[in-house]
Structures are given as structure tokens and as C-alpha cells.
């Protein structure tokens, strides 16, 4: 007993630095954002903020622009994540096979993910420019479109552009996670199925997919959370209007541009809750699946 308690004491001792760091970098900023969201703090004078209760949230909930931003963000996640999952899965299945030059291809696939988003978004912005962009030039020459398209200016098209560039950028991440999952699958099931003469399609749907599901769910959680707080890509690629604004951009606009720290924090808190809600949903789904399988 004595030994047990001293063991647990040692464990706490070893964990303290880690917990402290977590508190400083995660819990404290979060707590402070919660506190600020209930005040009328402004950037130029944070120390003299007044407690104003839920007024920021009441303003936020009646602001059509906020709900526009929420809709934009949810739509962005709903379109980009499934595309990335399907494409990523396809790429992962290909890369899982043994063929010549596989190592090189695996490395090459990661390039879009390795470039910082700001850089690649800027790059795409130039390539997609309506007058001197290379993409319009190519498409016009190929006869695919009659006239250059305003990829980043038209409200509907710029949304499509943002989703496409995001798919380009993050499919490699999805592929990599799923590839790791594929490689960890027990080979004996596949061998047994092959011996029994099960068709490839059946193997995929009955063995590969169920076994891969936990990995897939983790990959989806990562991507969805990333998509819900998307900022840089949209910030660079859109024309700065409310048609493509996401929750993060809305929060930043009020927090940084308008120096309205209290209101911006309220938006950030709501963003936090949306993300938390989605996470809980996913984790529940994952747990049900795992239980169901067992």
C-alpha cells in the first residue's frame, strides 16, 4: 500500500511539468477568452474592460453576418472533408500496393501538404487570376471555357475554388493517415479471404473498410476540426466579402480589425463550442462503431 501511494506520488510528480505547460498554453488562454467574451474589452484598453454579461452573445446571435459565417464554415467542411476522405482513401489504396517507384511517389504526394498554406494559397491566387492567371489561359486554350472565369471574385465560384484548393492541399494528409492505417491491418484476414476465393470487392467492403474504420474516423475528426477553423486559405483566396467569410475570419475581423476584443472573443467562444460539439458527435459515432464491431 505504502509503495503504491508513493508510486502514484511519483507519477504526479512526473506529470506536473506536463500539466503546467498544458495549463499555461491551453487552459489559461481558453479561460481568458471566456472571460473576455463577457466584457466590452477593446484592444487599446484591455485593462479597463467592463463586465457586460451576455450582451456580446446577444449581439452575435442577431448578427446575420455571423450566421452567414457559420453557414459558410459548415458548408466548407461538408464539401471539402468527404472529397478529401474519398480521394485520400483511393490514393492510400494505390500507395499500399507494391510497385516500382512507390517510395518516390509517396514522397511526391506529400508536397502540397508540406507547403505552408499561406504560400500555396498565394500561389493559387496568382494562377487563378482572372486576367493574367495561367489556369484561365490553359482552359481557354484547351477550349474548356469560352472566356476567363473570375475564380476568386465571384461569390459562388470563389467558394468552389476554396474547396478545390483545400482538397488539393489536404488530401495528402488524409492519404498518409489512411496508408498508415492500411499498413497496420492484420494480414491473416486478407490471406484467409484470398484462400477462400472471396472477390476483391467483397474483401474491400467486408474486411478492409471495417478494419480501417477507426483510422478513418480519427482522420475525419482531424480534418473536420481543421476545416471548421479554416482561416488562411479563405483569407488569402477570397475577395474579403461576407460571401465566403468563415467563423475564424469573422472573429478575427472583430477582434483585430475593429479592436473589439470582447465581441471577437464571444465569436471565438462560439467557434469553440461548434468545434467541441462536432468532436463529441464524432467520438460518439466512433464508440458506437467500435462497440458494434465487438
Amino acid at each position: 500500500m505504502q509503495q503504491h501511494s508513493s508510486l502514484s506520488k511519483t507519477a504526479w510528480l512526473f506529470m506536473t511539468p506536463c500539466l503546467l505547460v498544458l495549463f499555461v498554453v491551453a487552459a489559461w488562454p481558453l479561460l481568458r477568452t471566456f472571460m473576455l467574451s463577457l466584457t466590452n474589452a477593446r484592444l487599446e484598453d484591455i485593462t479597463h474592460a467592463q463586465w457586460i454579461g451576455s450582451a456580446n452573445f446577444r449581439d452575435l446571435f442577431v448578427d446575420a453576418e455571423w450566421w452567414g459565417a457559420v453557414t459558410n464554415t459548415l458548408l466548407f467542411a461538408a464539401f471539402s472533408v468527404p472529397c478529401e476522405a474519398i480521394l485520400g482513401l483511393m490514393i492510400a489504396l494505390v500507395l499500399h500496393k507494391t510497385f516500382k517507384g512507390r517510395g518516390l511517389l509517396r514522397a511526391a504526394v506529400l508536397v502540397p501538404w508540406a507547403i505552408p498554406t499561406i504560400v500555396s494559397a498565394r500561389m493559387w491566387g496568382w494562377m487563378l487570376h482572372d486576367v493574367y492567371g495561367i489556369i484561365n489561359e490553359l482552359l481557354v486554350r484547351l477550349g474548356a471555357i469560352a472566356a476567363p472565369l473570375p475564380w476568386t471574385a465571384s461569390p459562388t465560384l470563389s467558394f468552389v475554388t476554396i474547396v478545390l484548393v483545400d482538397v488539393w492541399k489536404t488530401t495528402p494528409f488524409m492519404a498518409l493517415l489512411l496508408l498508415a492505417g492500411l499498413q497496420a491491418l492484420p494480414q491473416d484476414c486478407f490471406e484467409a479471404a484470398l484462400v477462400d476465393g472471396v472477390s476483391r470487392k467483397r474483401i474491400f467492403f467486408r474486411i478492409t473498410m471495417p478494419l480501417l474504420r477507426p483510422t478513418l474516423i480519427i482522420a475525419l475528426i482531424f480534418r473536420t476540426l481543421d476545416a471548421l477553423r479554416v482561416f488562411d486559405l479563405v483569407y488569402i483566396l477570397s475577395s474579403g466579402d461576407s460571401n465566403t467569410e468563415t467563423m475564424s475570419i469573422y472573429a478575427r475581423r472583430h477582434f483585430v480589425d475593429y479592436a473589439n476584443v470582447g465581441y471577437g472573443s464571444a465569436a471565438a467562444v462560439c467557434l469553440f463550442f461548434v468545434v467541441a460539439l462536432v468532436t463529441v458527435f464524432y467520438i460518439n459515432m466512433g464508440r458506437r462503431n467500435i462497440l458494434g464491431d465487438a
Partner: protein
Amino acid sequence: MTVFLGLCCAAFATHATAAVLKMTCRAKGQELTLCKQAVQQWEKKTGHTVEIVSLPQSSSESFALTQQQLSAHASDVDVYQVDTTWVSFLSTHAVPLDAHFSAQELAAHFPVILQNNTVNGTLIVAPWYADVDMLFYRKDLLEKYGESPPTSWEDLLRIAQKIQENERASGHVRLWGYIFRGKAYEGLTCHVVEWIESFGGTLWPLDTDRVIQAFAFCARLIPTTSPMGVLSYTEEEVRGVFQLGDAVFAHNWPYMWTLTQSEESPVKGKVGITVLPQGQLHGKPASVLGGWGLCVSRYSNHQEAAIDLVRWLTRSEEQHRRALQASYCPTIHALYQDPVLCAAHPFFVHVARALETVVLRPAGAFGRSYSQVSASIANVTQKVLLKAITPEAAAQKLDQDMKTLHKRVTETPATQRATGQ
């Protein structure tokens, strides 16, 4: 560690004469190069060192950055390059400069710029260069079609459409009639003020009839004479399109001139500049006062050196050099009569003319809410340009937004006082 660094700095400040200063500088067009050249001369003269921090291209983003630094009372940057609309925010963060310039030196600048840079009778921003939106046009194309530069917006649309149609028919399919800064940011707000003022109205207090007229004009632009793409253009995208020869008219700042006349520019020798057109009946050509100045941070540890740097950068010789080399417009009126400058940039006559009748953005009236007002103006105008909202509804929405924000501005000082004590 901090104490040690602090001691080091203190020792450095008292014993060594050379200080290390930091200043922000924009990187639009040739600005950064010009800034570095001038700063190097000053470094040689004084023995101090200056580190240049480059600012984002967009004025709104630059403001966010500057605001963050100054609100945190950070001493990292000593000299800031600041836009005309930031003055009311800067009032509590910038060092008064009146005492460091002689009355004669001050009187040399355009009064409207000094007035803009002064808060409660104190000059806090030293004028560095002026900016007024101008109309750039393709001399060769206008001549080809027997047209002279337009004086009214109606004229502009007619000429733009005519040249665009004919040139497209003869193979130049990418040509557009009229381009401007249409991204939802400060650059578009400038245009809106110009459109409204050139129709004889004012944006604040909002003159409904004239604003509707100006918006009705905006609604006719896309896709007749302007590409949908303008909605994502800032200064440099406008220059890109115009410099490639793909636009007849461009509405932008004068810095564009030198670059369109550079050796590698496809439109070299084919560009003309004039004042902006006016609305047909009751208008006047109206350009917004743009341009940037320099201010010294109150939190700077090297204020004396910083003020000297500001004096060096804003003096007449330096403004002359910047004007000659890169067509940045001087804030000193005598320079517009300078024979060398006039010979190099014949269009300076128009700039001087525009500066005489320049209009101010409503930054003073809205104080710290200005960036929010500006965002609302730009956003509403984008909707008008897209025809997503009628000019009437847009004018009404704008009026509402501005009134709400103005009310907030006039109300806040009281609460601020209450909290401050």
C-alpha cells in the same frame, strides 16, 4: 535574462551614441526600395542603424498590425509609416511633432494634409507623400478611336465600351474597359467616396439621392466594362492588368505611373493620366486624400533619433527624389513647380489640381469605429457591383450602418471615462 538584456540596453543607450531603430515601411511597388535607400543615407550620416519592418500591402492589414503594436505599448518599433485615416487612433500613441519643425517647414505642405494629420491642434504625423486617385488611360487606344480623355463617368463608360468591343472583335479578347480596386477593403472605400463626391454628394452625412446615383453607376460596371475579377483586385492587381495592356482605363494611385513606364512594361509610352471624371450634371472631379506619413511612437526608447529620422525622410530633397524616381507625390506644394519634376512627370499638373480639391474620408467623424464603417461601405458596394442589392436599398443599408456606428462613437467616450476612473 530579461534583466540582463535590460541592463545591456541601458548601457548601450547611455554610453554608445549609435542606436538601433526600427521602422515600418510599406512594400507596395517600389516603396521598400526607396525607403531602404533613404534610410541608408541617414545611417551613414548619423551612425545609427535602422531595421526596416515591411508592412502588408493592404492598408487595412497594416492598420491591424500597427494597432496591435501600439495598443500593447510595445517599444519594438520607433517610427511607423501610417495612413491618412489612422490619425485619430494615433492621437494617444504618437509623439507631438510641431516643436520639431519650423513654421516655414510646415507651411510648405498642402494645408489639407497638415489639417488631416493634426489632432486637437497638435501635429502627430509628418506628411511623407500624398496620394490621390487618378484616371490612367491608354493614350494609343483613345487616339486610335478618335476619343479624348473622358470628363464624365458617362463618357468613360461610352468610350470604354466602344474600345473594348472593337478591340475584342479584332482579336484582343482579354481587353477590359475600366478597372479599379474592387476587393472589400479600404481601397474600395476610397473609390466609393470618390464616386459619390464626383456626383456632387457626400458619404457622411449620407446624401441619399447622390449616393443612389453613384451606386446606380456602379451597378452598370460588371460585366459590361469591368470584369467580375475586380472584386478581388487591390492596387497591385489593377496595375498588373493595366500594365499588361489589358485595360483601357484604370483607377489607381499615381505610383503606378513609373512602373508602367519602365523598360519591360508592355504599355511604355502608351499611358496617359488625368483627373477622375465627374458625375454628369452637378458633379466635380473628386479624389480622396490618400498617402502616408510618419509618426514616432510614444513608447520608443530612441525618440530623439526617431524624430531626426522622420525629419530626414520627409524633407523636401527626399520627397523630390522619391517623386523623380518612382512618382510618389510630394506633400510640399513648391515641388509641383519644380522644372525637373514637371519635365519628368507632366501629369503632376493634374495631381496638384486634384490635391487642391481633394476630399477626406469620414475617418475623423468615426474615430476608432472607422475601420468598421469602411468595411461596411466596401461590403455594401461589392453587393451593388454584383447587382445583389438595388442602389436604393444599398444607400439605405449604408445610412443605417453608419448611423448605428456613429451613435456608438458619440456614446463611448462617456463609458470610457467612467471605466478610466
